[in-house]
């Protein structure tokens, strides 16, 4: 299913020019902030940055940026039809692009969280958060890829999911945790370290993450299968 050439082209689109610096800005910013606060403040102030800012904001933003850069520009300017005209399975296209987006999300989103958490000390907690970030990053990238294949406003729609549904409503209503990708990741990480919150049921968290990932990638391929070009709205 995986197509090396498409993956290579997606990687080039991701690392090309300015967007690479935008993608790089997140981990650099996060690690610099956490190091600064670890050096200056005492207590656990530095670690609180990670569940407060790094995990719920930086990780999904990196995932959005990665997923929309492997698919978004091509859908935006219509050049995706040249790719779809090739005799390659549309699911193969979706999977190849997802693998690249996933690799970018984990490298620029999950890995910096591990590094930043290790800087604050307590490696068990750091690894637990990293496992959570791996689960959430995988699920996020599949979901956002599916959204990118559906609408031109993929970035805003994904941002609304993360900022309004997961952050704003998630803080108001605890029940949102059952339908929040970030919370599923935290629940899996909770198994390694009790310092992470325990929002939902473990089986549910694992199953839901797997289902969203699989359905997300399949749906992206399905949308590409019945793709139609529309004009600028």
């Amino acid at each position, binding site marked *: 299913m995986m197509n090396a050439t498409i993956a290579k082209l997606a990687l080039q689109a991701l690392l090309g020019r*300015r*967007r690479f610096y*935008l993608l790089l*800005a997140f981990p650099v*910013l996060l690690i610099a*902030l956490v190091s600064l*606060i670890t050096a*200056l*403040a*005492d*207590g656990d*102030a530095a670690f*609180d*940055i990670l569940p*407060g*800012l790094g995990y719920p*904001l*930086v990780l999904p*933003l990196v995932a*959005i*940026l990665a997923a*929309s*850069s492997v698919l*978004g*520009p091509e859908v*935006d300017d219509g050049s995706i039809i040249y790719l779809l005209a090739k005799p390659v399975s549309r699911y193969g296209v979706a999977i190849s692009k997802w693998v690249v987006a996933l690799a970018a999300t984990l490298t620029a989103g999950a890995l910096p969280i591990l590094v930043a958490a290790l800087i604050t000390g307590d490696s068990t907690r750091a690894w637990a958060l990293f496992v959570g970030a791996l689960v959430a990053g995988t699920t996020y990238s599949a979901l956002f890829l599916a959204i990118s294949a559906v609408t*031109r*406003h*993929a*970035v*805003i729609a994904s*941002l*609304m999911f993360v*900022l*309004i549904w997961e*952050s*704003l409503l998630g803080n108001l209503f605890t029940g949102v945790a059952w339908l929040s990708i970030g919370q599923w990741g935290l629940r899996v990480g909770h198994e390694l370290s009790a310092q992470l919150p325990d929002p939902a049921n473990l089986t549910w968290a694992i199953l839901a993450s797997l289902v969203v990932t699989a359905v997300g990638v399949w749906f992206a391929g399905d949308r590409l299968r019945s793709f139609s070009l529309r004009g*600028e*709205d």
Partner: protein
Amino acid sequence: MSDVPQSRPGVIHDLGYRRYDGLREGTATIARTLFITGLRHAYGLGRSGKSKVMPFLLLAMSVLPALIVVGVVVLTGMSSLPISYADYTNQTQLLVSLFAAAQAPVLFSRDLRHRSIVLYLARPLSAPLFALMRWLSLAVALWFFMAVPTLLLFVGAMLSGLDKSDQVTQLLKAVALQTLLALLVAGITGLISSVSLRRGFAVVGSVMALIVLTGVVTAIQAIAADQDADAVSVAAGLFSPWSLYTGLANAWDAGVETFVPVDGAWVLAYALVALLLVAGCLLGLVARFQKVGSR
């Protein structure tokens, strides 16, 4: 027909056909039309149905809590609003930031990406004025976005018979602060989307400048206040548009709490930084449009 005026300099559409001898509107009319079109486009009016969804969805989400607050105040007969006008905007800052991030590319990126900017600038409208009008459209659209729920809260407060002079003072303070914030946010998001022409990257860039930066500043402010480094906490507030807004609102007694009260010379610093930021973004926008227009 006598004494037809010679074609004016700077107009390129005179191909020798029969002259138009009606009334010619000047630059002021072009600028005003551009402003009104931009304002309508920011809300998707005059564009396709799909592009109306996002702005009105966000507007509805920012109005809904105000309706609930008004309902609670009217039903329970409270003696004051549970949230001040300026603080309401602060609490819904995520929605305001998303609206700005989503709609700035509509006004600033499309003309540059499709090169239709050349057609605009072929008219007697200069590039700086074009940039200025686009910025004003976005600022007024943003101001409107914040003013609707504020006004709704005010109407609710008046209907439930709260003290009039008190509420009017608070309302006017909030509106003045919102105006400054709208100018600021429109400048920042406009500059980002005129530099980064892909919609997705402009949106992520704006979200970084508005939401991520504010999150970082808030974290630093909270930690500094926790460590009794009050000056650091206040100084950190200078680095994001939302913390500038809350700081100024706090200093002006508009009902917004900050970690450390902003007072003394800091108020002047906050006001100066906000104004300089607006001026800087405007200069950047004008420079950007002049550069693109001269290509």
